[in-house]
């Protein structure tokens, strides 16, 4: 029986899987950056040709640093056909970032980048320090005195006025022999400078507008010393604008208000949308404040909030209050950037030794169920005589509801985390079961409008009333959930915070259906065991944190002598609901080492962070070191993980990953920036592939697997043994050709999974993207050309998807920069071939499942479509305060699901 269930499930999975892939009209295009910069805002762009605002529910970037246990999330905003996410890389010890992009469409389908197993194979990018920070710190030599004659710190000079001159004063008899070296923007220019023992001058000829850094060093045989390092700016005075008399008002708030109107023709129907967006911030003494809001006429009560607004107040570094739509982070296991409509307050008192945080609000708002009525179906026997009747309450397409999901969370931490901090945190997430009308059985249906059951006759009515559970709900009834997570955290820093130890341990509980409240004596009796009243009272008291009843995922009660007169329950502690993560990081200027141990039970759940990987335990170690004056970054990593941490499965899957990355980031932009990565992963569960009932050539495709135990042949779990090799590379080069400055970037990614024990487990994926941005010297024109190729074959031929994308863009400034014209043209060609995986009985009419094996269906379903997007826009800045932006967008989808969509939008911006 189990075998047939397994087969049906597998076939269903593939049936479900195939149309999802073929119907999807969109593909995500993304140029992976060669590196991300620490302490800067890095914005990532994702293009989805053909998608329009009406298709989008929401989009997120999920990211973590250095193989974190889960992913943080940040919402991506859609504008002009591009999703953008601004990411502040503010984790000082981070050496790499992993991320994937998820787009949720209103149709209910989802798009990912990377397309193939995004959570398992996210994009990985090195994090580097900004150029100003990569300079190795040098000792100073107190024997050398100096006077900077020109330019002084933070001087602003026109390009023709730059003269570098430094007078030196020292006693040669007390100074170790050596020489002075002059650097501009980390480039050694000593040989071009006019140098004498006590004076250095240099007149650079080719300094571009912008900030520049001068560094003077004294090099001896044994050591290099820093004399001084300072910055100055080169600016073109002709581009400076006169000051007005309002510039000095520090208390004046700054902000932007944007009003937009959009007319769109999508799928042949015209609809208009209006938006308003505002962002205002300012400060008054120690008080900093900001307000933001977004209102759209496309707000729908069928979706989570599209209108979003919030305010943030901060008083010094002691108090913070965010209200409205907020994005709190308490810990990796609880909530980490998930949107909440409510408040997030933080206090840091007594010199940061007492830290408090409190979060309250809604994670989800309620969305009502849209029921259509009861469908009555008679089941007949072979002769057509009715033998039974089924009653199913229908639901409109996308009409399934959602409960209001409330969150209450808090954290208290004692001590400064730079030295020693111990914290306690807890989070309660619970659906409000009364927030929507939700039919679970016929009795609950009677609380709704009679029109839903008006088609029932008296017999049906009585039948359902006497047996309410006969009523089914299409797709199942939604159940309100409850979740509680509590834990401790420990943070320590040594050696000026260069060595850090952070640890978090949590326990969680999940109730999959809190209808009915806590378990009572009577309820337990109905379930076939006894609990005492005092235990029931205890559960009632605990219900302020989580409702504990028979639907809790892991009941902390063990029933002894079940189904007997002496059955009784005793409490126990289920370890499967635990989670812990410890990280040791050692960060010295040229070396970042990190060791992480995690243990997450299979039943750990946080309803506020679904990205925490469950049922996993093991170590992750990585070391990144920098060589050649921080030009070369080398990363080495090793990870050993296994599942089945509570030993409740028949086999344990072990996974070992070796990782290496080599990146070269020269300071000079005439040299290419390169990054190459290598990842090798081996995954196996120790089960040997064996099925004596199928021909040897089909053994790897067998549905069942066996083992010989003495004289018995036993069914075993499905064997797992595969190897994944992932190679990636990225090269960026700047060059000048025909007096045009070009930035060319090429990214390659190749992933190959070879399954040694399943004939249809191989995966081949390769992606190439090329981008060239050209900036013209004579005119303020910038062009962009990009190409992407993507080929993914999964399931050893079950799906084969080929995507080719091309986009070009142009941006041209005129009228002294007041007017910007821009355009973009993108086209993609998407071809997919799919073959279903079916079970092939070895003999026609053979009902023995033991000799079944999978084969690829001979029928190939081919689907292809092309998208063509042309976008044109203009921005006119009337003056400093007022701007108008116009955008027009036309999308054509040809082939499967062909359509023509167009959008025209006008926005007005008021900056102040």
């Amino acid at each position, binding site marked *: 029986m189990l075998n047939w269930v397994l087969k049906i499930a597998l076939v269903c999975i593939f049936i479900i899987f195939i149309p999802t892939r073929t119907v999807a009209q969109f593909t995500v295009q993304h140029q992976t*950056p060669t590196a991300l910069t620490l302490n*800067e805002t890095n914005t*990532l*762009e994702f293009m989805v040709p053909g998608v329009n605002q009406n298709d989008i529910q929401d989009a997120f970037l999920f990211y973590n640093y250095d193989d974190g246990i889960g992913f943080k999330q940040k919402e991506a905003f859609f504008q002009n056909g591009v999703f953008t996410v601004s990411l502040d890389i503010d984790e000082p010890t981070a050496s790499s970032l992993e991320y994937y992009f998820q787009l949720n469409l209103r149709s209910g389908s989802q798009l990912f980048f990377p397309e193939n197993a995004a959570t398992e194979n996210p994009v990985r990018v090195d994090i580097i320090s900004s150029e100003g920070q990569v300079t190795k710190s040098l000792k100073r030599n107190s024997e050398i005195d100096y*006077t900077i004659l020109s330019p002084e710190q933070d001087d602003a*000079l026109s390009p023709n006025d730059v*003269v570098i001159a430094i007078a030196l*004063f020292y006693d040669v008899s007390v100074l170790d022999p050596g020489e002075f070296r002059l650097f501009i923007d980390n480039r050694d220019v000593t040989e071009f400078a006019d140098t004498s023992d006590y004076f250095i001058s240099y007149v650079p000829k080719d300094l571009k507008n912008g900030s520049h850094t001068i560094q003077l060093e004294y090099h001896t045989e044994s050591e290099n010393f820093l004399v001084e390092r300072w910055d100055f700016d080169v600016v073109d005075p002709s581009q400076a604008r006169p000051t007005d008399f309002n510039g000095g008002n520090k208390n004046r708030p700054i902000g932007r208000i944007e009003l937009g109107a959009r007319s769109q023709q999508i799928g042949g129907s015209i609809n208009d949308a209006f938006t308003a967006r505002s962002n205002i911030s300012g400060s008054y003494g120690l008080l900093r404040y900001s307000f933001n809001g977004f209102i759209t006429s496309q707000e729908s009560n069928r979706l989570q909030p599209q209108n979003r607004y919030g305010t943030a107040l901060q008083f010094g570094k002691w108090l913070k209050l965010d209200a409205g739509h907020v994005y709190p982070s308490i810990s990796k296991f609880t909530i980490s950037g998930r949107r909440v409509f409510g408040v997030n307050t933080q206090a840091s008192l007594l010199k940061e030794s007492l830290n408090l945080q409190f979060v309250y609000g809604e994670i989800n708002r309620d969305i009502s169920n849209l029921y259509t009525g009861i469908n009555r179906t008679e089941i007949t026997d072979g002769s057509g005589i009715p033998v039974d009747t089924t009653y199913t309450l229908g639901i409109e397409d996308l009409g399934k509801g959602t409960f209001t999901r409330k969150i209450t969370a808090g954290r208290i931490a004692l001590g400064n985390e730079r030295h020693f901090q111990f914290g306690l945190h807890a989070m309660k997430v619970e659906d409000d079961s009364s927030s929507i009308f939700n039919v679970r059985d016929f009795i609950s249906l009677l609380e709704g409008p009679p029109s839903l059951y008006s088609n029932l006759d008296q017999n049906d009515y009585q039948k359902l009333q006497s047996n309410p559970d006969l009523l089914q709900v299409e797709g199942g009834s939604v159940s309100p959930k409850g979740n509680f997570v509590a834990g401790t955290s420990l943070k320590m820093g040594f050696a000026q915070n260069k060595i850090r130890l952070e640890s978090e341990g949590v326990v969680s509980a999940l109730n999959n259906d809190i209808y009915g409240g806590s378990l009572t004596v009577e309820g337990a009796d109905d379930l076939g065991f006894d609990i005492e009243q005092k235990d029931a009272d205890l559960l009632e008291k605990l219900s302020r944190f989580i409702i504990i009843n028979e639907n809790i995922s892991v009941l902390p009660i063990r029933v002894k002598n079940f189904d007997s007169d002496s059955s009784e329950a005793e409490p126990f502690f289920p370890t499967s609901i635990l989670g812990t993560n410890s990280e040791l990081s050692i960060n010295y200027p040229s070396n970042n080492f990190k060791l992480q141990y995690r243990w997450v039970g299979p039943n750990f759940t946080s309803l506020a962070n679904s990205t925490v990987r469950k049922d996993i335990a093991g170590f992750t170690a990585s070391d990144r070191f920098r060589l050649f004056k921080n030009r070369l970054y080398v990363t080495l990593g090793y990870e050993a993980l296994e599942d089945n941490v509570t030993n409740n499965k028949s086999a344990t899957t072990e996974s070992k990953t070796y990782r290496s990355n080599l990146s070269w980031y020269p300071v000079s932009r005439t040299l290419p920036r390169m990054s190459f990565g290598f990842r090798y992963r081996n995954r196996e569960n120790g089960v040997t592939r064996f099925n004596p009932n199928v021909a040897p050539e089909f053994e790897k495709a067998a549905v069942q697997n066996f083992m010989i135990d003495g004289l018995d042949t036993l069914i075993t779990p499905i064997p797992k043994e595969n190897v994944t090799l992932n190679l990636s590379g990225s090269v960026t080069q700047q060059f000048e050709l025909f007096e045009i400055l070009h930035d060319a970037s090429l990214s390659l990614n190749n992933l190959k999974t070879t399954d040694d024990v399943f004939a249809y487990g191989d995966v081949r994926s390769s992606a190439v993207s090329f981008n060239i941005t050209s900036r013209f010297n004579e005119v303020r024109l910038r062009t*962009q050309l990009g190409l992407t190729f993507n080929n993914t074959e999964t399931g050893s031929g079950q799906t084969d998807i080929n995507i080719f994308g091309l986009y070009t863009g142009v941006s041209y400034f005129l009228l002294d920069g007041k007017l910007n014209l821009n355009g973009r043209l993108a086209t993609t060609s998407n071809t997919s071939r799919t073959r279903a995986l079916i079970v092939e009985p070895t003999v026609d009419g053979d009902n023995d499942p033991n000799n079944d094996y999978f084969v690829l269906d001979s029928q190939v379903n081919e689907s292809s479509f092309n998208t063509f997007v042309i976008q044109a826009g203009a921005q006119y800045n009337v003056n400093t305060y007022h701007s108008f932006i116009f955008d027009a967008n036309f999308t054509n989808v040809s082939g499967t699901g062909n359509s023509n969509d167009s959008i025209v939008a006008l926005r007005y911006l008021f900056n102040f």
Partner: protein
Amino acid sequence: MKLGKAQIALFGVLSIILFLGTLKTELIKQDRPLAIVKRFKPNVDIENSLADRSKRLDLESDRGEQLFDGDTLRTDAEGYALVVFMDKSIAKVKPQSLLIVRGETERTSKRSNTRIDLSLGEIFLNVEPQGNNDFEVSTSRSLASVKGTEFGGNSDGYVWVKEGQVDVTALQSGETISLFEKMYAQVNGNADEIESGTLSDNELTNLDDGFDELNEELIKKQIKLRFKDANGQIREVTIDYYEKGN
């Protein structure tokens, strides 16, 4: 008269000392200039007859031209020069001026003695108030000695003070007076008398006129911009921008 051996030896030692002294001066001169011409407008000429140096400064190639002891700087009818000395003192030289820079500096410390012989024209100085340094401006009539001030002077013995204190000496008589903020002094043609008085704001402004010819004061401000970098990703960066002051 015949020279004795002792006298010859003494002469020899003195010659060596003199030679070494000259050599030392030359070496120091090679080590470090007294000043640089940080900014100028054509035409500006530099001459040093001892060093056999004479050149007209070229805007392309001669920015930061170094001035050594004895160097002459001359501006023509259109020429301006902004000279920065080793102690960061600044001299702004008007058209039709001629000055000779003289001085010496020490290798191991910032102590320096600087004198500008102003033969023609007009200069304005912003002298850094630095410890024991001596800074003087001499003309055929006057000697102005300063220690941290802003003042101007011309070759006709006129000295005026915008800020700080200047001691002005009439070279013939040795008479010395001290000038303070918004005061002037005029040494007569015989260099034996000094007339002094106070200046109104208008007069001070008139005297200042022309010296800002080489100023490019810019006020630094910040703005946040988003741009697309070489990788095709958009970055948000804080950009400094500059406004010309009123």
